[in-house]
């Protein structure tokens, strides 16, 4: 009863609030001449000068700023290509692309430009395609005017009335399948004065993919319509493939540089919670619009939407781009890396200063094996079994986050420890890696890795020995034992130069 009354009061007060808001709006409109709306402000008259052929770029590159002071006629030529490409290591998928890449070519124009758009459909295509550019004012965003059979070309023209960052995509039936196969990209309509200059501009776009086989199931994987309708993606990816922006293909910057990312979300289904681990966005032009939000940790990007984020790099290291719906990052591939090189700034970030053992109540049962092994080591009765048990418990607490509980690692990011030829080649080398860390290129089981493992020198000699003994006796590795004495010798020796963290060039 009480509740009902409250609801009624609320309804009344909402109605009053709405009325007054409307009233205020009317008053404002009466007081001043009606301002032109954003899109009519964007018509700067007929195009001037010679027609310009737009320069399109493949992701993650962005065409240079236009620095043009007048509206022009811009000719855009975009080709639809259906092609098989890797979606993950050892997994291929038939992508339908704008310009041969996923996401499609980046298009950069200026507000007020008149764009003559040519959509070509490669003769080898099986499907008809079209394009809906969210930056177009007109029915379908160009879709009905650009419906193109294989081996044909369509043309239509539009004036870019609104500035902003816009998604474009294919809208041919079945739309979800065309989008799900990678048919999307970004169109930037620069404001007349351009965007503020920055040191780096990058193009990143998220998409969800639906295959018949499971995540990372090898071979060619066809599109699965049922999973797409159920919105259960197999992959969630930045730039169309697992590893598209990691390892050698990671985005790069130096310390003390400004970075702008044009980040889109093609969908077809998921909304992205875009986040860069260890960075705070100084500015976010959310939803690709005109207004700026400042000091943002995670920004939402709707399916069929985009965002411009800017930040300044201060501390060197690897910054991981994720969809913070976090299982997508670690179990479906939504992970990219920005590698920042330069001198450390300890006043901003110290690195680890204190690492002491803290055994809460919960750790007692988990680490019982560790305690037992420590006792056995002291009494000189330590067995291989003790070491493996203790090492397993320590591994799960310290190493499994990156190398995974199965020792499989993460392709292109964290090397595998399972059946590792790198480990087998020189088991004692691993002691130095734990104590001193490892930076730079290594080849493990035929794949190249180029990332940073921090030193694990908080572990004592017993612990290092047990972890390595566990690893050597697990997952098809050759077996063997590492003793605390082995570890102590390596710890006493100076760190080898190659293992010292140093910036790469």
């Amino acid at each position, binding site marked *: 009863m009480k509740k009902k009354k409250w609801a009624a009061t609320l309804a009344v007060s909402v109605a009053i609030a709405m009325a007054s808001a409307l009233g205020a709006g009317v008053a404002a409109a009466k007081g001043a001449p009606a301002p032109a709306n954003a899109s009519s402000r964007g018509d700067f008259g007929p195009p001037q000068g010679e027609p310009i052929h737009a320069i399109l770029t493949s992701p993650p590159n962005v065409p240079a700023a236009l620095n043009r002071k007048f509206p022009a006629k811009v000719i855009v030529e975009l080709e639809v290509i259906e092609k098989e490409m890797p979606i993950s290591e050892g997994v291929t998928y038939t992508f339908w692309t704008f310009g041969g890449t996923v996401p499609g070519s980046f298009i950069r124009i200026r507000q007020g430009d008149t764009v003559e758009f040519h959509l070509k459909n490669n003769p080898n295509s099986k499907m008809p395609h079209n394009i809906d550019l969210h930056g177009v004012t007109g029915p379908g965003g160009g879709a009905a*005017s650009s419906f193109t059979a294989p081996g044909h070309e369509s043309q239509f023209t539009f004036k870019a009335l609104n500035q902003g960052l816009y998604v474009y995509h294919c809208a041919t039936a079945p739309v979800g399948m065309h989008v799900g196969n990678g048919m999307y990209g970004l169109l930037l309509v620069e404001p007349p004065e351009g965007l503020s200059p920055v040191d780096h501009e990058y193009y990143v776009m998220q998409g969800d993919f639906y295959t018949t086989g499971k995540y990372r199931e090898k071979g060619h994987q066809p*599109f699965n319509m049922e999973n797409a309708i159920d919105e259960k993606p197999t992959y969630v990816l930045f730039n169309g493939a697992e590893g598209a922006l990691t390892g050698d293909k990671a985005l790069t910057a130096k310390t003390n540089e400004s970075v702008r990312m044009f980040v889109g979300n093609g969908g077809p289904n998921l909304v992205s919670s875009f986040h860069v681990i260890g960075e705070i966005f100084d500015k976010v032009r959310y939803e690709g619009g005109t207004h700026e939000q400042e000091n943002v940790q995670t920004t939402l990007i709707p399916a069929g939407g985009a965002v411009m984020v800017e930040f300044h790099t201060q501390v060197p290291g690897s910054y991981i781009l994720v969809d913070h719906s976090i299982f997508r990052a670690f179990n479906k591939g939504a992970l990219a890396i920005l590698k920042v090189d330069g001198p450390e700034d300890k006043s901003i970030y110290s690195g680890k200063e204190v690492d002491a053992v803290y055994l809460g109540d919960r750790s007692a049962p988990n680490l019982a094996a560790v305690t037992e092994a420590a006792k056995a080591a002291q009494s000189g009765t330590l067995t291989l079994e003790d070491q493996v048990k203790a090492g397993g418990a320590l591994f799960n607490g310290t190493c499994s986050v990156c190398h995974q509980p199965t020792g499989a690692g993460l392709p292109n990011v964290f090397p595998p420890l399972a059946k590792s030829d790198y480990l087998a080649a020189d088991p004692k080398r691993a002691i130095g890696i734990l104590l001193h860390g490892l930076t730079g290129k290594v080849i493990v089981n035929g794949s190249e890795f180029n990332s940073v493992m921090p030193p694990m020198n908080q572990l004592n000699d017993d612990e290092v020995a047990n972890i390595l003994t566990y690893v050597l006796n697990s997952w098809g590795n050759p077996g063997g034992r590492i003793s605390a004495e082995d570890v102590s010798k390596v710890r006493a020796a100076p760190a080898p130069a190659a293992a010292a963290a140093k910036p790469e060039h």
Partner: protein
Amino acid sequence: MLRAATAVLCMAAFTLPAAAADYVTVPGGSYSSVLPPDGKFAPAVVAAFRLRTLPVTNGEFLDFVRANPQWARFRIASLFADGQYLSHWAGPLSLGGAGRNQPVTHVSWFAAEAYCESEQARLPTWYEFEYAAASDESHADARGDEAWREHILDWYSRPSTTALPDVGSTPKNFYGVYDMHGLIWEWVGDYAGLMISGDNRDQGDPDLLKFCGAGALSTQDRENYAILMRVAMLSALKAADTTANLGFRCAKGATGDGS
């Protein structure tokens, strides 16, 4: 003797190809089309008809062009075919690398219709095609079978960068017809009446319904993407268009004439 025979043949408007093609009778019936005749739920009704068991091949079409040179590449009126017409052949009257038993592609609707007339036949209607294409090897209507649908979609989702297989390379369906899926796109006689918009998403648009009435895309079975994609492909085309994987087969009335 040979020359005389050729002259005689050329006098006829269209001539029979050397070997008569196989047709089978598809019994009539009614079924739920993705394009219901009333735009809502009414079933499509198909009278019994005869359908070519195989798509027309390069070899058969070459024989037709030899007999009817007005349909040869470079001689055909530009109104009837685009610049890519039969461009996969070595020359206007020679196949070169194009296999005799591969389905003919790069043919326009006009050329396909003319060929069928030479067999005293016509192109099938959309309803005839959709009806006969709904079957798998053992069921007249297999459209509820998810695995079957996925199989069709798998073909659609691969680009055609490799040579086409010969006709008859897919299993015979319920009616004894081959290659209704998994080989090529096929023209239908009334393809121009498939008024789906270039923009698939404006279903229910009042402007569109005004012009297109029942033909506007209002699908009975929104999950039947496999057949929808065929509609989308056909509606992207003009009658003179040709593509690398678009061919045809012919149909006749139940009594065997071209009605």
